[in-house]
């Protein structure tokens, strides 16, 4: 079967916005797809070593539910995605000196990412 190409973009860092792109990336990578996992705006915070996933207001129950269920943390999931071969990119970002990447990520212009998305079998942003 032809190898699929998947481009997933994380735009936000709240817990409920961080899980879906990582889940899709892990799922796609584990099924053999080439996965580009890109981070922009606040999503890039997920890549920071000091990132703590906090849900949005009124969704606090999700934190407890995820803990109770024993679901992998956002950083664990990110690690699995990288292990599975997902490539990490940050888009149009001015990396400040205090930013500490938990995994290496290449900085790319949005145009590059959109070109990749145009040729992908699946493009999603969260």
């Amino acid at each position: 079967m032809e190898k699929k190409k998947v481009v997933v973009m994380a735009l936000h860092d709240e817990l409920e916005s961080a899980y879906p792109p990582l889940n899709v990336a892990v799922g796609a990578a584990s099924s053999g797809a080439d996965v580009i996992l890109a981070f922009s705006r606040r999503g890039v915070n997920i890549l920071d070593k000091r990132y703590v996933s906090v849900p949005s207001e009124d969704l606090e129950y999700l934190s407890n539910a995820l803990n109770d269920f024993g679901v992998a943390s956002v950083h664990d999931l990110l690690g699995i995605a990288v292990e599975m071969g997902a490539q990490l990119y940050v888009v149009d970002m001015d990396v400040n000196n205090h930013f500490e990447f938990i995994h290496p990520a290449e900085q790319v212009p949005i145009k590059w990412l959109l070109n990749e998305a145009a040729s992908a079998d699946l493009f999603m942003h969260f």
Partner: protein
Amino acid sequence: MANKKFVYFVSLSSNVPYVLKKALRNAEEEDEVSIFFDLDGARVLDKRYMKIMERTHNMDLQQLMQQALDKGIKFFGCQMNVLIADGLELVDGAQLSGVATFLETAYQADAVLSY
């Protein structure tokens, strides 16, 4: 014959009414629609949540969901959803699925939209 295939991915329950209205418009155009509910979005697939909605709001959401199901729109709940841990009572017509089903459906779609 279906014109186009739409896939909606909903992770916030507050977005569900909007997505259902869009999905119903797609279905009226004879488009094929699948909705995947994840995280907080999957709450609407729990019968107990629907009862709370019924008490605290009007029946709008339940009616919308029934209309969507009647129109042939497919509802999928994320198999790994954390709400299942304390016993999700799945609404009639919805089914559980994993990320593999989502990807399979999404690869075939003309548009995949996340909310």
